[in-house]
């Protein structure tokens, strides 16, 4: 059985190992997790779920903390605008 799965980050397919987090998938795809209040691109900072910079829209749900979320097959992941 494959140790990898596929998710979609901003529409693009990304292959990632099983057990990886959504934040890792977004970083692999080179996509920022969110856009700040003044328009800056942002990515994960603390890696432990407290900085909220890793928030993204996961399967339609905004403000999802991606560094504490495991990737699932065919997950739809989009940068939080």
């Amino acid at each position: 059985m494959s140790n990898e799965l596929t998710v979609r980050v901003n529409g693009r397919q990304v292959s990632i190992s099983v057990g990886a987090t959504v934040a890792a998938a977004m970083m692999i795809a080179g996509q920022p997790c969110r856009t700040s209040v003044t328009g800056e691109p942002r990515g994960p900072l603390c890696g432990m779920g407290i900085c909220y910079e890793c928030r993204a829209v996961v399967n339609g749900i905004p403000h999802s903390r991606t560094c504490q979320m495991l990737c699932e097959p065919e997950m739809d992941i989009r940068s939080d605008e």
Partner: protein
Amino acid sequence: MRKEAYDVVIVGAGIVGAACADALAERGLRVVVVDYGVVGSGATAAGMGHIVVMDDSDAQFALTNYSQRLWRELRPELPEDVEYEQSGTIWVAADAEEMAEVFRKRDYYQRRGVSVEVLDANQLKEAEPNLRDGMMGGLLVPGDAVLYPPCAARFLIRRAQQRGAKVKLGATVTEISEKGIRASDGQEIAADIVVNAAGANAAELTPGIEIKKRKGHLVITDRYPGFLRHQLVELGYLKSAHSVTSDSVAFNVQPRQTGQILIGSSRQYGAEHKKVDQGILAKMIRRAQEYMPALGSMSAVRVWTGFRAATPDKLPLIGPFPGKKSLFLATGHEGLGITTSLGTAKILAAQVTGAKPEIPVEPYLPSRLAQEYARV
């Protein structure tokens, strides 16, 4: 300790105190404002920041309408961080009885020149798609607005300072006398007139005035731009504000310019501690979900409480304190402090300088409750 002399010392740098300082300084008086915290840190910081006309009574309407006009005139000068947004209010009717109230309100406002529009069920749904189905309709008041109160208070204080007013923060006023005030660090400020604008704490400094603390809860969410366009209030709100003895909640949500949703409201008598009251909070959120189910799954970033200054007849106390020539009150604004701060300030400034106020002020005079003060 050093003594200083002023024409007016204002106790309280909340939005009411700030507005009064600005209005008095504009008329050339030497003003100082004293507060134990930072500018706008009491009910000003805790409240929803709405600018609404209310029709609870003719006197309440007169003051809110007057004040709303003043805010509209001030708008072009307000800096960005005040976040003034004319989002309007929709009074939501959930049943036939409340819909009848919508028509009554419409007539009341239209007769007084306030622009309003009745929305039927479809129009309401179009205006606010996230309201649950089954609402009967509502009354849209497009002239109502929302702003961020601490920055509005700061703007007014700054303008007052530009006009010569002084500000002393971090100083707790412990005593008001006919000479002026004394602060907790022993400092005395001499002034011809003292204005008590201390909000929920006003009665501590002026024993006998009928100000009771009316606790409220609010929840603010993360950013969900586009979810809510207008401030929404259920028509049961007035039933809640009317009650003088029991705890109550009502559906009241507000879109902030940031895209965050402010969820309220609650009213409690007799609750003196700041802690979040779980029972009331749960009730308030359940009520909000009845109107907007999608609120439930939103991320709530913060919950807080605050104390409104409530009077027995739901009108503020603006004017001279009976029997004390040098003491004026500008307090007791309950949930309308932000709205009526500007009107209060103009009235107070007229009273202090002996000018003619722009609206009749009898309903707000402290002396109307004179029997209460006779006991003091």
